[in-house]
């Protein structure tokens, strides 16, 4: 048991990669490749369930730690560990990947082998980002997510796919070199890449010149994360990438990749630079609010179903950033919960959009209307997910947004009030979209005969629907692990506040 305890993170991270390597040598029999990828991604999911099952909820700090020297000069360690926040993000990733495999079963017909190799490599990189405790390792996985994602968009997307892929790649690549520079600076002064070591060194004031450089370091990390989130006004790559990406790419992009940014803010901006986070919180929260409202308003006027969901992501991720920079227990709990909830429901929304695209090869809302008649099961699933996404109580969206808003109120009432309008907007654009697509008469004759969901699609949609319900009814199953981790993350900020008051 103890042996598994320290190797489980390595296993979960690298099982998909091992699967990808095996696929490399597999013959090109598409059906077998699909089944094999499904088995591998399910295996990773089952392994990842070990994390929440054996998680010591009372214990603070990182668990399942493994720390081995990897490269002697510079001192790079293979240091992995999970706390209540990252653990759930790992499970989210492994939960969504098998669904991605299922949803791509028929829509990917060409270069099938390469597609699933890229998908599995992407899964490894994503998990690696969440469990790395060595800044170098973190950067390594962070950059490693770029290539498979860009290739998935560029090779399997549609429309202006190349433009979208290159834009995505360059945007995130350019932003992350600033983070690299900041990481290198920290290493040059402290001589370690270890997150815990660096954190302790900064807290104890052992870093020379830190005060002069701290703001720049904070910004270096922040820019890299803000592009990923994406925070207004750095969001322009996201609609392009989403619209052109294949369904599985969109699911992972919205479901997990964006969370790399918010996770990074929570872990690194708050963890390493509490003082700078506090000083810069006002304008960051304003940007987050702009993102919430702007994203929702733009989503409302989108004629394209996928673009609408993409802009709704910008709006939802605004909530996460708002929650993180409210520096309240509720705000951070809520931010983490929104990350998970958004992953599940937006992932499912993209899957639903993809299913429609497979049948009609368009995302334009005007092409549809009255779909509830030919596709009743599909319409039911869609409604359920839409309700969970707009924050209906007892479904997953509500819990997180409620916590974030209560945190924002505590921080400053006006932030809470403005943020709360976001909930109204999201109800507007989602329900309006639902009405235009599903209600009324069937206008286009082609839509009369659209087949309803088949078994495979239903299998892919049940898990997110069930998860949305369980997360809404029993959020404590998640929050009781998130809460202690958030307390740890907030501790330095609380100290900071008491020091300011004491003075």
């Amino acid at each position, binding site marked *: 048991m103890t042996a598994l305890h320290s190797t489980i993170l390595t296993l979960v991270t690298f099982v998909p990669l091992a699967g990808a390597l095996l696929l490399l040598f597999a013959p090109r029999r598409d059906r077998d490749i699909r089944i094999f990828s499904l088995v591998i991604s399910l295996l990773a999911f089952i392994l990842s369930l070990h994390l929440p099952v054996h998680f010591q909820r009372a214990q603070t700090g990182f668990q399942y730690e493994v720390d081995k020297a*990897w*490269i*002697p*000069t*510079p001192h790079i360690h293979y240091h992995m560990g999970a706390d209540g926040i990252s653990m759930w993000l790992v499970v989210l990733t492994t939960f969504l990947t098998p669904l991605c495999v299922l949803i791509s079963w028929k829509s990917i017909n060409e*270069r099938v082998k*390469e597609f699933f190799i890229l998908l599995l490599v992407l899964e490894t990189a994503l998990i690696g980002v969440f469990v790395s405790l060595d800044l170098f390792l973190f*950067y*390594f*996985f962070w*950059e*490693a997510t*770029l*290539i498979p994602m860009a*290739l998935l968009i*560029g*090779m399997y997307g549609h429309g202006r*796919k*190349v433009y979208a*892929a*290159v834009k995505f*790649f*360059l945007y995130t*690549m*350019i932003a992350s*070199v*600033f983070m*690299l*520079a900041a990481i*290198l*600076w920290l*290493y*040059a002064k402290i001589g370690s890449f270890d997150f815990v070591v660096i954190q302790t060194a900064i807290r104890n004031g052992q870093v020379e010149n830190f005060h002069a450089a701290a703001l720049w370091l904070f910004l270096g990390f922040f820019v890299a994360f803000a592009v990923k989130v994406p925070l207004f006004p750095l969001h322009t790559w996201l609609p392009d990438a989403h619209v052109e990406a294949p369904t599985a790419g969109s699911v992972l992009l919205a479901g997990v990749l964006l969370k790399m940014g918010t996770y990074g803010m929570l872990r690194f901006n708050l963890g390493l630079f509490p003082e700078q986070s506090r000083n810069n919180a006002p304008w960051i929260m304003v940007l987050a609010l702009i993102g919430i409202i702007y994203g929702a308003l733009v989503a409302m006027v989108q004629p394209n179903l996928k673009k609408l969901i993409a802009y709704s992501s910008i709006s939802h991720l605004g909530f996460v950033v708002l929650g993180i920079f409210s520096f309240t227990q509720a705000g951070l709990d809520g931010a983490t919960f929104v990350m998970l909830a958004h992953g599940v429901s937006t992932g499912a929304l993209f899957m639903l959009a993809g299913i429609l695209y497979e049948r009609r090869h368009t995302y334009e809302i005007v092409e549809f209307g009255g779909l509830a008649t030919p596709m009743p099961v599909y319409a039911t699933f869609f409604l359920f997910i839409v309700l969970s996404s707009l924050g209906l109580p007892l479904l997953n969206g509500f819990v997180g947004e409620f916590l974030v808003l209560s945190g924002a109120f505590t921080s400053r009432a006006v932030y809470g009030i403005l943020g709360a309008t976001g909930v109204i907007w999201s109800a507007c654009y989602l329900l309006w979209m639902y009405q235009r697509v599903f209600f009324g008469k069937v206008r286009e004759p082609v839509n009369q005969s659209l087949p309803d969901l088949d078994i495979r699609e239903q299998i892919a949609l049940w898990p997110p629907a069930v998860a949305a319900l369980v997360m809404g009814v029993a959020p404590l199953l998640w929050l009781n692990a998130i809460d202690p981790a958030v307390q740890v993350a907030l501790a330095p900020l609380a100290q900071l506040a008491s020091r300011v008051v004491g003075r």
Partner: protein
Amino acid sequence: MTIAADTPQLIPKGVEYIRILPELVLTIFGMLIMLLDPLIDDRRSQKTLGAVALLGSLAAIAATLYQSQFPGLGFWNMVRVDTFSLFFHFLITTITALVILSSYDYMAVQQIRAGEYYGLILFGAVGMCLMSSAMELVLIFIALEISSISTYILVGFRRRAAISSEASLKYFLLGSFATAFFLYGVAMIFGATGSTSIPTISQILRSGQVPVLAYVGVALMFVGLGFKVAAAPFHVWTPDVYEGAPAPVVGFMSTAPKAAAFAVLLRIIFEAHAPGGFWLVWVAAALSMTLGNIAALVQDNVKRLLAYSSIAHAGYLLVAFAALPNNGIPAAMFYTAAYAAMNVGAFAVVSHFAGAGERYVTVEDYAGLGRRSPLLAATLTIFLLSLIGIPITGGFFAKFYVFSAALQANLVGLTIIGVLNSAVGAYYYLRIIVMMYMREARESLPLGPIPFGVSAALAISALATIYLGILPGRVLEYASRSAADLLR
């Protein structure tokens, strides 16, 4: 000169010949090729001479490994075998072997008579090896000339193509000018210190007032070497010459002579304690990175694109020269090794794909390569990602070590220029990847199987690139020991 004063004995001892063994082996095999050339009829010459050359380079690698047991000085303190020289010997001889492997089929496809081609590659390697172990400025000059003259001729080897002859002539004229600068610098240093032996120069420069003449000498030598490594502002020749020269030769000349010139530069800047090097290097590094990357953005010819990329990489490498010796030297050495692995590999792909008469060399020609030849596209992708500096490739750690060395020396400005440049650079390498995977080919014919020579060269360079990207520790540790040897 101070040669005779230190060493009374006039005939070198046996062990001293071992200290130039790789050079001897390469020379012998080179002459063997020249002798065999007229004896073998044309149709078989390509295969046989290629095999002899490959054998020669492998023997040189073996000689380097054997030599490692006999470190020390030789030939009146003119050469020194230490971990530093061994590192570069191994690098240069390996590059030579890989280039010969990838030339094998290229020569047949281009219908160039092999003849002296392989001989010249080996002779060039002699000069480059000698540059890395020479302790004497005059010997360094001679070695530089040996390597340069071979490459001048190699550049013009596509005799039927006017562009190749133009490249050769241009390279020859500008190159001789640059070596003249180097020689002039040597003379100035001799005037300032009264010696051409690097340890003596180092002693004199460290002990007292540094004469102005020494500054001039260092600057002039830097001009000569800057030309060889294609650093801005001495880079103007690079794109034309790379475009005209046969692709495998470009793979050779963009790595091996560069490595040798960097070795010399390391000796001059760090071992000889050259004065005034810092700002020369700073300006050249910043210029090379910026000019190289910006010019590469608009290139349509892959060879020209890689030429500008090599200018940019010379810039990144020079950043390490501005850092402190004990991190800068290992970082620079690691960078040369990683750069050699990825660039030799990239040019192996380019030379195989170019086809007869080098017809397919524009970025557009690579469209759809991912479908036409998945293997070729995949390996080129590895090399390009490494050139961008994406993790799990050698290029990433190379950049990483260089920039962290720079930051440890508080060179924040230069690091920021470098980091921004590497972001700009991502774009043009990415264009090729995008072409290969995301655009449809104009000619949808699948390419034939990759011949053995090319696939061996590709496999070795791809493995080396990934090895350096996952387990860079051993190579870096060896480089650090070499740095200690150099600074002793």
